[in-house]
């Protein structure tokens, strides 16, 4: 097991007084980015609030057609992946590279798992004509406005799904750099920031799941 010495040495950029300054600045930048993410998803959450406020019965009837079991499984998957991501970060900080690799791989696999479940969910929706807007052909739901609910469902879970995909990309990227031994107790900024991003993806789902699947 590697003992905390990084194979490659990280040199902080010249406009920072120290590596610590660089770390803090990067982190703050990430938080500001996450603020923009909150506002982007926020628009959709406000749209959801409006839809539910205007047509509570319609939203209620439509939400019953979502698969609670699949949503719950995905919640468990995503929370567990958040845990493994947090452990990957702390392992890197402690210089336990091999553990960090295992945790990052696990996180990546949980993300795949999430998308596979999502795939089955989406397929079922497609099959029943529960599609957004003009493509809505389901006849079980009597209210013609039901298409609006599914527009929002696909918009929200779709945007979240894209975040999961991007998350997988950046996890793979830090995994590769971890394998190369670029991170250790002295330098782990990318791992930590990818962790933030991944926890944020989890955070969005923590609200999406109850709003769409449970109390709709």
């Amino acid at each position, binding site marked *: 097991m590697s003992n905390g010495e990084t194979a490659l040495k990280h040199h902080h950029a010249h406009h920072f007084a120290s590596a610590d300054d660089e770390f803090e600045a990067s982190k703050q930048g990430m*938080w500001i980015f996450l603020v923009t993410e909150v506002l982007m998803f926020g628009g959709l959450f406000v749209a959801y609030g409006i839809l539910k406020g205007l047509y509570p019965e319609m939203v209620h009837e439509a939400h019953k057609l979502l698969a609670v079991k699949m949503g719950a499984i995905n919640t468990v998957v995503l929370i567990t992946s958040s845990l493994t991501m947090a452990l990957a970060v702390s392992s890197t900080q402690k210089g336990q590279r091999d553990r960090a690799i295992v945790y990052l791989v696990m996180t990546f696999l949980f993300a795949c798992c999430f998308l596979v479940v999502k795939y089955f969910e989406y397929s079922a929706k497609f099959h029943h004509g529960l599609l957004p807007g003009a493509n809505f052909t389901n006849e079980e739901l009597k209210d013609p406005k039901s298409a609006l609910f599914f527009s929002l469902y696909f918009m929200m879970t779709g945007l979240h799904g894209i975040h999961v995909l991007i998350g997988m990309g950046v996890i793979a990227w830090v995994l590769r750099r971890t394998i190369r031994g670029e991170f250790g107790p002295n330098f782990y900024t990318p791992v930590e920031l990818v962790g933030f991003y991944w926890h944020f993806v989890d955070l969005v789902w923590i609200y999406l799941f109850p*709003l769409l699947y449970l109390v709709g």
Partner: protein
Amino acid sequence: MESHSEKQKHHHHHILPTRTALMIGGTLLFLTFVTVWIAGVDLGRLNFVVAMAVATTKATLVALFFMNLYNDRKENSVIFATSFVFLAIFFVLTSMDLFFRGKVVVDPKLMTASQSGSKLAQPWISTPELVAKGKEIFSVQCVACHGVDGQGNGPAAAALVPAPRNFHSDQGWKNGRKPTLVFKTLKEGLAPSAMASYASLPADDRWALSHYVVSLGPTAALADTPEDFKKAGVNPNQAGGGSEAVVATIPVEFALDQMEVKPVESERNPHLYAPHEARWLERGAPESRAAQIYSESCVECHNSKGEGGISILRGSVIVRALNAGSEGMKSQEAFNRWVIQGLPGNLMPGFGQYSSSELRDLYRYVQGMTAGHSVD
């Protein structure tokens, strides 16, 4: 540069202990189980509150520990929290606009549009053109009560007490059977009878109507006396009778705009409507004939949503909302009776011209339109 000190500086960075990580993860999974379980129990509105409380607890745990805000510099917490403050502003202001704005109420007293008076030099003098024009306006504005021939036997007449004037008789005209006096009636209405004020019509239209109804009589009208002019507020020494006193009214275009029934574009896919637009779908496209009847005969007073309220064109008259609690909405029979006979003593005229199948469609249409209303 000082690479030897970097390692030391990192020492104060908080490292999440594995134990804590596992505990937080376990708590999150437990809370997930709790929220799914509680959602299955019917708590009414509380379900939503509980679900959001659990979600917020989970989100807080993730932010504080997995994202390390608990041990991080406080400014990062402030930055992140700010986003939720703005999100709250976004949500609250949007909701206030959407759910609490209410209907646009225009106070007629504030909207005083002065009528410029007649454009003719002496509109009180009858001409064949004015009579012909009057006949045209009559067929739109007056026939429901006064009948096509002006005999006071329109479809709504049966329901009205007193009965509408029969213009073919020269007896019993309340204000007198002279163009100036009919002009006065049209301007002011004949309270408390069902004869409403038509002050919203341009002065020329009212003069034309006056000449037309007088022309229906068995005898020629008597000449206007100076007193008649005075009563009618017309100055015979000024072109057009002088400008009329400012009439409290709403510009007709504005009123029509308020009452406009949005066109239903049948080719347009109904699912493409934005949420607020989708309200229009409720008085949907398929029942186009019923929609047409509604816009012909009902919308002027009951408004495009069946909510009643203040009719703008016919002065300040409270109009019934067409919701399920309304007597005339209780059954098809009651509905037909109200529509065909109108409401005696009220402004609701009768509409005898529709077939029973049209009435059936209209009833269903109005029901659908007002299904969301609360019963008042």
